[in-house]
């Protein structure tokens, strides 16, 4: 199946670089529609840059923001492959935001590789063909009698060879070839191999700069005091004490916030503590218990319009010989990127410079242009490597704040958030409540499925996801609950929780009708293939493929004494992932021994990076399912640092075994898809072991099952 629709026309820009060499820029007008994600609709111009020096060194631009998903390494690998150069001669440069040259300078929706695959290959192959044509012209031979390898052009019959570096100046004067041939994947030398993260050397020596490290001439550090509870506004404050602190340069206020500026991070944070603002509210601040009660109330009624309707849900449920019901609770969780939020802004009379960790630089520029009435062309945006984001850096609130502060203080500023500000600052994964009903017929086949949910977001479902397509009577109903708590995409938005709810519920149904959970899923996928119902966004064969693979890896169904298994599978960002978790009882505690994972993400670009993403996503999913919960008391977050908010640590991370389905399909998303299935794999294994169903997260709260030690003190 196709990953996304890309229509394009392209043209090349050629120029000689100042230091000699060829710049090959390729522009595509691309329209691409990633589905099943909160990814922004992209319809922009893409432009990949190649620079070849006369010394044979090849510079490849990395236009997309790097957030730890590995695109700064993976995207240039695609260009280098088709260009046929030796990886050790490749230099990668992070590009700044430039919508004339590039399109989709985005880190989000697991979309960088899948939307860049075709155009980046084209860019590399076109470059290679120009170099071949230049050599052929020089040797007076036909281009199709020339071959390339590792940055050289060869002519077999005459035994001639020449390096790209010696050809670039001539190549730059050659006409731009059209319809170049792409490599046969069988001949890939770079794609599919293990290549280390390009920035590792800088990272491990402390030289890599992140946004939080930005320091410029005349720059002030700033910290911002924001309303501590969602729904509060600023009434008054006294800044006298703060201004007296050593190193403090200014105090400004805007939008119910107060910013303290000075020469160092700690001094501004310390001075800010002396400001004791008076906050006010309208008396309707909600606590976690209020949300729970209100969610339950909301689900007493169906919404006016369904998100999806197949067959007749009422009749389907009534016709069942067995019916099932389950409720799942999903807590708010913060993103907690390791690098706390921060951003640099320098607002001058006639221009603005923005620099920092941002997943959507173009959106940031547009927002600033609009909000501050500054022409777009006057705003320059540079992207730093990001210390994680998990969706938080898809927002632009932190850029807007930096601009406001710089404008008011008339100075370049780096606004740095304390962890407490970061964790208490909102844009959380939405809290939600899910109620499912299902029915099976006398053969134990699933004939009805009703999804009914409410949450602090527009759509708490992924209505076209499995098991949609496999069930004759299916209905999806969602409600939005309005709240002053800000929510936003969190790694694998919505998928990250519904996969738990739905894969747990399917497991429950399989057990209820006495079928093996693997066989039950495969039967549903057979059904979806033979008689698909309504819109279906997955390929049943590829879906079944990962389930079979992981079952085989884990020795599913074979008895392993004392070991209990649970399976789960989920499709997101066009990628299929199935996982089997194994638990066993160690000294009265349930312990996760190992998680197996099979992934079909089409062609693998960087095997090392791909495994790292999958493993990291699994550990992330596991950690948040086990421990992640942000609660509110009268609108105020109860957990704002790692002493009260528990993140997974090394001793809690189980070994994982990962296998990729090897095929030549187009590459699909990988930064997110391995996260959603893991919680249900664990929940289902716990059910197999104990007969107890985990129906809310974090699992840590389920004392019946996990007597997990409370947050350990510092090691």
């Amino acid at each position: 199946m196709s990953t996304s629709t890309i229509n394009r026309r392209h043209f090349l820009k050629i120029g000689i670089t100042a230091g000699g060499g060829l710049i090959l820029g390729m522009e595509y007008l691309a329209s691409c529609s990633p589905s099943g994600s909160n990814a922004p609709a992209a319809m922009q111009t893409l432009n990949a840059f190649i620079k070849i020096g006369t010394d044979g060194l090849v510079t490849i631009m990395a236009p997309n923001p790097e957030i730890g998903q590995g695109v700064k390494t993976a995207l240039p690998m695609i260009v280098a492959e088709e260009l046929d150069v030796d990886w050790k001669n490749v230099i990668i440069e992070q590009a700044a935001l430039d919508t004339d040259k590039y399109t989709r300078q985005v880190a989000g929706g697991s979309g960088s590789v899948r939307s860049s695959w075709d155009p980046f290959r084209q860019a590399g192959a076109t470059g290679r063909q120009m170099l071949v044509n230049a050599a052929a012209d020089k040797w007076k031979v036909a281009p199709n009698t020339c071959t390339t390898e590792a940055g050289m052009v060869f002519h077999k019959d005459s035994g001639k060879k020449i390096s790209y570096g010696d050809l670039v100046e001539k190549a730059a004067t050659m006409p731009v070839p059209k319809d170049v041939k792409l490599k046969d994947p069988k001949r890939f030398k770079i794609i599919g191999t293990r290549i280390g993260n390009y920035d590792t050397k800088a990272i491990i020596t402390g030289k890599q700069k992140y946004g939080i490290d930005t320091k410029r001439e005349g720059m002030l550090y700033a910290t911002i005091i924001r309303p501590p509870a969602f729904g509060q506004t600023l009434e008054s404050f006294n800044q006298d004490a703060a201004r007296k602190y050593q190193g403090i340069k200014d105090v400004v206020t805007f939008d119910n916030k107060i910013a303290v500026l000075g020469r160092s991070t700690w001094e501004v944070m310390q001075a800010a503590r002396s400001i004791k603002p008076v906050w006010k509210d309208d008396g309707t601040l909600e606590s976690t218990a209020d949300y729970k009660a209100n969610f339950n109330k909301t689900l007493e009624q169906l919404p006016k319009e369904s998100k999806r309707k197949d067959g007749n849900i009422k009749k389907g449920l009534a016709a069942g010989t067995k019916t099932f019901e389950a409720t799942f609770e999903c807590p708010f969780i913060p993103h907690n990127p390791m690098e706390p939020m921060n951003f640099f802004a320098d607002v001058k009379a006639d221009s603005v410079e923005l620099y920092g960790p941002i997943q959507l630089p173009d959106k940031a520029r547009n927002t600033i242009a609009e909000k501050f009435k500054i022409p777009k062309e006057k705003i320059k945006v540079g992207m730093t490597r990001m210390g994680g984001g998990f969706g938080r850096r898809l927002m632009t609130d932190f850029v807007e704040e930096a601009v406001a502060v710089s404008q008011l203080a008339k100075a370049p500023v780096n606004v740095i958030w304390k962890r407490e500000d970061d964790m208490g600052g909102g844009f959380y994964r939405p809290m939600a409540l899910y109620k499912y009903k299902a029915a099976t017929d006398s053969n134990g086949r699933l004939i009805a499925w009703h999804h009914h949910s409410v949450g602090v977001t527009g759509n708490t479902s992924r209505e076209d996801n499995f098991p949609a397509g496999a069930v004759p009577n299916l209905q999806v109903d969602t409600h939005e609950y309005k709240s002053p708590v800000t929510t936003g995409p969190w790694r694998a938005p919505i998928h990250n929780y519904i996969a738990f709810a739905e894969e747990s519920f399917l497991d429950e149904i399989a057990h209820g009708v006495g079928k093996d959970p693997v066989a039950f899923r495969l039967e549903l996928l057979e059904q979806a293939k033979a008689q698909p119902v309504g819109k279906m966004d997955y390929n049943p064969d590829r879906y079944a493929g990962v389930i079979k693979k992981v079952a085989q890896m884990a020795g599913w169904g074979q008895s392993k004494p004392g070991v209990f298994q649970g399976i789960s599978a989920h499709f997101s960002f066009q990628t299929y992932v199935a996982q089997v978790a194994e638990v066993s009882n160690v000294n009265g505690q349930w312990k996760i021994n190992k998680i197996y994972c099979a992934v079909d993400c089409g062609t693998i670009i960087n095997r090392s990076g791909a495994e790292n993403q999958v493993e990291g996503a699994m550990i992330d999913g596991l950690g948040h399912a086990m421990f992640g919960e942000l609660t509110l008391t009268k609108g105020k977050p109860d957990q704002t640092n790692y002493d009260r908010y528990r993140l997974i640590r090394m001793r809690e991370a189980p070994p994982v075994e990962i296998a990729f389905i090897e095929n030549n399909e187009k590459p699909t998303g990988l930064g997110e898809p391995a996260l959603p299935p893991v919680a249900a794999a664990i929940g289902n294994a716990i059910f197999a072991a104990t007969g107890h169903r985990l129906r809310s997260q974090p699992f840590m709260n389920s004392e019946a099952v996990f007597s997990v030690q409370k947050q350990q003190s510092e090691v």
Partner: protein
Amino acid sequence: MAVFNLTINNTDYKVDVDPQMPLLWVIRDFAGLTGTKFGCGIAQCGACTVHLNGDAVRSCSVPVSAIGQQKIVTIEGLSEKGDHPLQKAWEEVDVPQCGYCPSGPIMSAAAFLKDKPQPTDQEIDNLMSGNICRCGTYNRIKKAIHLAAQGGKS
């Protein structure tokens, strides 16, 4: 406000700051060494780990006034050429994702490997559980520590 003379990576620095200022911020904002990271500020994540006379400490929770004559080593000073066995192992195993945390676990592990040159899995678990990697690279971190302990041979 007071003047402090510090030795960081064998270089002398003189700073005039609040005695309560945590070492982390002196290192980052005054010495300009940004390889030591801020994560939580309350000794919970390990991102700010540095060596104080060879021991790993959370620099966010040590006031500058407590340093005295002790020698400070940060990630920038761990080795001359970035070739400490742990740094080499981090590269070999391709550990980082976002790359924000690594100086913490590398500095923690460098200190404990001196006392425990051949740690077991469980010892690594215990000694490294004060370092959070939000990207979840724990298994690779463990592999890299073993690799470094075995002199770079896997």
